[in-house]
């Protein structure tokens, strides 16, 4: 078992509190579930790819890429 601690930006901390109230789960359970889902579905790489598409579209709009 590995223990990690991290600082959450305020908006994320508020979202976590709201999710705790909504689901009845505690922050640890929610964080584990979110991490498991995100890593399991390789969403980091997919999110990067999607955001690169947005960057490319804006560069085309600006006439900087064809």
């Amino acid at each position, binding site marked *: 078992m590995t223990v990690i601690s991290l600082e959450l930006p305020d908006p994320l901390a508020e979202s976590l509190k709201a999710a705790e109230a909504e689901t009845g789960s505690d922050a640890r359970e929610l964080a584990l579930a979110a991490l498991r889902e995100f890593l399991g579905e390789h969403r980091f790489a997919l999110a990067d790819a*999607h*955001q*690169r*598409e*947005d*960057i490319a579209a804006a560069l085309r*709009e*600006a006439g900087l890429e064809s």
Partner: protein
Amino acid sequence: MRWMSDTGPLLHLHQAGLLDLLQEKPGVSTTPTVVEEWRRKTGEAALPEWVRTETPEPRTLRKARGWMRQGLLDHGEAESLAHALATGTGGFLTDDTAAREFAQANGLVVRGSLGVLLMAAARRRLADGPARAAWYRLAHHSTLWISPALRRETTEALERILAKNAAGK
């Protein structure tokens, strides 16, 4: 082109104080479940009036429920995407990876919050200083996931766009 949005871009742009970037003709629409999710997550009473709330047809809601049952999409994403497809909306706004893949596979043009911001800069709706401030707020004041590599790439792209805009004055 008409745009339909799920909760992500409405939430992330609101958190960064950038919701007005969506205020383009012919405007942005969404669906009741997205409005409810947005209210719950922001604590705000209502979306701006220029975000139209459209109620999907029963058969559209059935399609959305089917996607949810299969575990493909969550409620707000499924409802807004099904409605976009049913009504011939050309564009879909989402920051969700699964919803984006699904929308693109169905032929929709898709943008996320980052794309909204960069497109506003590319179209000169944001001047130099406001564009940099907007990027800072989206990166630091919203819950949008942006990896360190993408933060660097976005900063570089924004610099190129702003330099082009300055050169074209």
